[in-house]
């Protein structure tokens, strides 16, 4: 009888552990997919490109990039995360990565981190004028 109880307990523990492992893998997979740096890079690059496309010259836009900066810090990436080359926006949150997206609005754009506060939270997008 003792043996049977012992077996039952062991089986239950194994069963619970397996279920926990199963759900942990599932949650890890979902979180890795939803909060990945590549996804954030794509989202931010497209967002900025669309903001520029819809803007008129002499517009200044401030964009909050706290999440992206936190991700870059996690990935040990210290350089500027957003850059503009010609009519292409590049967002880079890790050393081996980055996402570029072009905008059609033929304007002169400059992007730089907002240093007005102690900790950088925003980036400033300045649409200066038509080229």
């Amino acid at each position, binding site marked *: 009888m003792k043996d049977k109880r012992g*077996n*039952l307990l062991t089986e239950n523990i194994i069963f619970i552990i397996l279920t926990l492992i199963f759900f942990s893998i599932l949650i890890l997979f*979902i979180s890795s997919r939803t909060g990945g740096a590549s*996804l954030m890079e794509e989202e931010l690059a497209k967002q900025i490109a669309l903001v520029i496309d819809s803007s008129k010259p002499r517009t200044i836009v401030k964009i909050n990039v706290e999440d992206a900066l936190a991700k870059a810090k996690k990935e040990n990436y210290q350089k500027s995360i957003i850059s503009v080359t010609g*009519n*292409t926006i590049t967002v880079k949150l890790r050393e081996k990565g980055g996402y570029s*997206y072009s905008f*059609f609005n*033929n*304007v002169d754009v400059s992007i730089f981190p907002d240093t007005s506060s102690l900790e950088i939270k925003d980036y400033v997008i300045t649409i200066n004028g038509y080229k």
Partner: protein
Amino acid sequence: MATNNKGNRNQSKSLADLASRFTLINPPLKFPKDRTGADKILSVYWFAILFIVASGVFAMVYVFYTSPFDVRNVEADAIGNQIVSCISQNGKIISRWTTNQTSLKIRDECHLDFDSESNENQYYVQIDFYDFKTFQFSISNGTEVISSQPLTTVYDGNANLKTDCEVGEIKNYNKQSKCLEKRFYAVDEKNNLYTIKITSAVRKTEKNAKL
């Protein structure tokens, strides 16, 4: 008496036989004390269900998050808006669009840059000027079909994308260019009323659709 005893014995023996047979056929219902076997079967089914549910979740998350964000419709809409504000101001057509339309290059007039990451041109824009008085359209299968002929048509960009727009009117394919049409009314300096249709197409399939 002896015969009676013998008879009773025989009777009880046959009853015992019958009882034993009855027990064999219908054993008494007893809840099993040892249910580990049943538990094992249940846990196997439990894991099978878990596996099916998890596979579904994996598949959905994988399909959703490996597909890029499709922003082509928003982009096509923004191009359309830029062209509208480039052609007309306060409802009046800017004179250069009515006097010398064919020599105009849309990308220069409307400050558009069609260069992109890809070598091939990813944009197409077309502006059709219709006479407002004779402008006619019908609705067939939920889509508008313009029966009037445009007075002038000006276009720029990759003309191959125009066919994608025509196909897109029948069925929406993700791998094709996304097209958008805008229509507005404006007057020129001589107070002639125009219906202006703007078609904008954005390809950028590699960046916006799962290939």
